[in-house]
């Protein structure tokens, strides 16, 4: 067991973890952050995407011990004071989700995308989300949502 200290969605945690524990399993099983999900075992689908110190990472491709001393934001930590993050709102307004399983990762990645480029073209949005798979929407409304969030100045 290795002791780690992390801040997740604004709260501090100190925990003993098995060194092989993936960040996503630590989040889900030890912290109950089940909003972040596991969709594959090869780092392809992006469903588990969270922010580590403000940058998107696939939490299945990171060990929990690598998050030691860092700050993690999950889909559950996005809304502030009951107000949805503009990206969450844009996904809702533009019907950018159906089953919703890829949605947490997709939203986290989309926020990261706009942080790097405030006003991307549709092609740049598609490229920026290349590491996130959705089986329901055909991506059209996801692109539309990200565009809408960008137009609204979302970060």
């Amino acid at each position, binding site marked *: 067991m290795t002791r780690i200290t992390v801040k997740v969605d604004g709260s501090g945690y100190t925990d003993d973890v*098995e060194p*092989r524990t993936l960040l996503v399993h630590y989040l*889900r*099983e030890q912290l109950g*952050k*089940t*909003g*972040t*999900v*596991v*969709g*594959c*075992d*090869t780092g*392809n*689908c992006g*469903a588990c995407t969270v922010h580590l110190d403000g940058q998107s990472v696939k939490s299945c491709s990171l060990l929990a011990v690598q998050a030691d001393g860092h700050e993690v934001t*999950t*889909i*559950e930590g*996005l*809304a502030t004071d009951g107000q*949805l993050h503009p990206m*969450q709102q844009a*996904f*809702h*307004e533009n*019907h950018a*989700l*159906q*089953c*919703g*399983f*890829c*949605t*947490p990762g997709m*939203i986290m990645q989309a926020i990261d995308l706009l942080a790097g480029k405030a006003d991307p073209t*549709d*092609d740049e*949005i*598609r*490229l920026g*989300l*290349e*590491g*996130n*798979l*959705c*089986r*329901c*929407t*055909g*991506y*059209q*409304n*996801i*692109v539309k949502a990200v565009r809408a969030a960008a137009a609204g100045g979302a970060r």
Partner: protein
Amino acid sequence: MTTTEDRPATEVGSPRRRKEDARLITGRTRWTDNIALPGMLHLAMVRSPFAHARITAIGTEAAKAASGVVTVLTGADLADEQGALPNAWAITPEQKAPVHPSIAVEHVAFAGEIVAMVVARTAAEANDAADLVDVDYEELPPVLDLKTAATDEALAHPDLGTNVSAVWTFDSAEAGTGQDVEAAISAARDGGILIEREIRQQRLIPAFMEPRSIAVDPTGEQLTVWSSTQVPHFVKIFIALVLGIPEHKIRVIAPDVGGGFGGKLQFTPEEVLTVIAARHTGKPCKYSETRSESLMAAHHGRDQWQQLTLAATKDGTVTGLKVELLADMGAYLGLVTSAIPLLGAFMYNGIYKFPAYHLSCTNVFTNKTWTDAYRGAGRPEATFAIERLMDELAVEVGVDPLEIRERNWIKHEEFPFATVSGLTYDSGNYEAATAKAKDLFGYDDLRAEQQKRRESEDPVQLGIGISTYTEMCGLAPSRWLGSMGYVGGGWEHASIRMLPTGKVEVITGTSPHGQGHETAWSQIVADRLGVAFEDIEVLHGDTQVAARGLDTYGSRSLAVGGMAVLAAADKVIEKAKPIAAQLLEANVDDLEFSGGRFGVRGTETGMSLGDLAFAVFQGHKLDAGAERSLDADATLDPDDFSFPHGTHLCAVEVDTETGAAKIRSYVSVDDVGTVVNPLIVEGQVHGGLAQGIAQALYEEAVHDESGTLLTGSFVDYLVPSPPDLPPFVTARTETPATTNQLGVKGVGEAGTIASTPAVVNAVIDAVRHLGVSDIAMPCTPYRVWKALKSAQQEGAQQEGGRS
């Protein structure tokens, strides 16, 4: 999340934002894998690496001794307890099938079949111990090629004595629905046009985003089972039938379910084994598959050879169609595996007036993952075949492929139309959908550009692909299902509870997993009962709440389940009326119900449904005989299928130097009848298009010569990512169905059914002038390039022969 201002005149037809979204965009979801109960144990499966083998020994000692392991169970341990997994659809009385165990006892028939399971305190410990289970196999020759399998040269299940499960035929002359196809073929051979083609429908994997997961709690009076399934009601019945647990002692819950696409229309080995593990240990147990396990062992889809003969006159009027299918069942029959080709068997004539039709289908076992429903289920195969053939016919006749379709399709004034396969299409307007699609696409301009590129020998050629389609959906009239050999019915159930505070609970037997029923059903009920959209809660997916239901698949939910909701709402009104009359001291015949209020005609007197619900809850003033409830149930069996249709146009640019095909524009015009929520409908079309395009260009489950799945992860199984798909232009025409109250049809599968042939027709159209007339799916750059190369070589040889 929802606004009460700007309330639409009618909820039906309004683009309501979904109620479901709030929990999904904030991570407050309950996926099955999220369920954690005190003392819960975790399962790991040991799966066969061989496609075909005999198990000679299984050593479990090391695994049993590993840290945290509670028990390790093998097929031998469970042989008497596990029962056999069901097939619910014998397509012929003689249908043959091997016994389908949840855990292999002596014989494994595909790579990925479960041979042992480990139950441990944590998932990590279970997985560690699974590696310690020592299985000895005696390898048997795997039966992998579908055509060879059909000859019984080697057997996938030696005990069965054959690989052929069933042969099913339909003949229009015999059925009295049309003429003799052989006569049409002979006539075409002497002076008409005969087109013969063989098409491969590659094997696909549904690849829902949420891997399957099952949690079972054996504590308490009822066994509680959570499963990531499309069909909780089926799962309940089959747990009872297969494991002998009394049905009333079982509660099945499908919580939030992350997609299905037919892939979760199944009763699975993993469900059986998780129940067994919970029974053996007396503890809550959970199994969540990895993606690799999902791709390897959850049922696959498609996988057919189609032998097609189309007869036509010189002017391109089709006179007959003969279809001979070989369909790969994989290693076992699942719930409806055997009937998947049949769901397409009635659709090979598409939107056309064919006078003669014959289909024979041979279902064959191989040593590959079992197949079953995948979005469209039979109808994409049929639509692909006929739409490819119509393009070939256009080439033979020398006319535009849209014109050849128009010469043969059913005109809008000819509905209702009895088809050569014995269905009756209630409504449609193929002219209108096609005209709209042409216009949105800029058809004539693109044809002109195509011509220019051909003339200039541009290395990037342009192709235009057309697909017109109809499909039978809204599964299904129970009598039809019974006549086809299916054991179940096709009705759907709904209940409405009028709560004392005027709020409404709608309970549906459908089981949504992304389709937005909570929103759409609220819209239907809001209009009918005059209750605010926000005051309605739709409950589903828990057999303790939604006790009756037949779940979600086959584009049935709205046309069957939504109509059951409507029928239940009507019953509430009928039930409320005499009570309202009594409380208002009026004659029942003088009451009218409108805008959520019973009013006495010609007066200001009236009472809202909400106030009535409270009065009924109190019961103080009601007549002695009046029931103290406005709640109502309705079970609705549809009169017929619904037949959505549409026209899809696709422009593809093919780089003739690299073989890469890129979709430049895609227009779909779909007619799904009355639309309850245009946002949801559009979303369904988008997702359907993505999956159909993926079959055309990207996806294929590939096995090596020993039967190992090579596309066993998302690295190799190419679910399209955002840059792989184009933006879509989607539009609708609206020809209401005449077979249900709202005029709705289905939309869940339409995009998938229509898009595959549109894309492949476009790819071939781009390179046809270079001598290519067919490319197998998926049309990868390598396949397109190879087709171009061999056409070039053939051309050179012919040149050489002539000089």
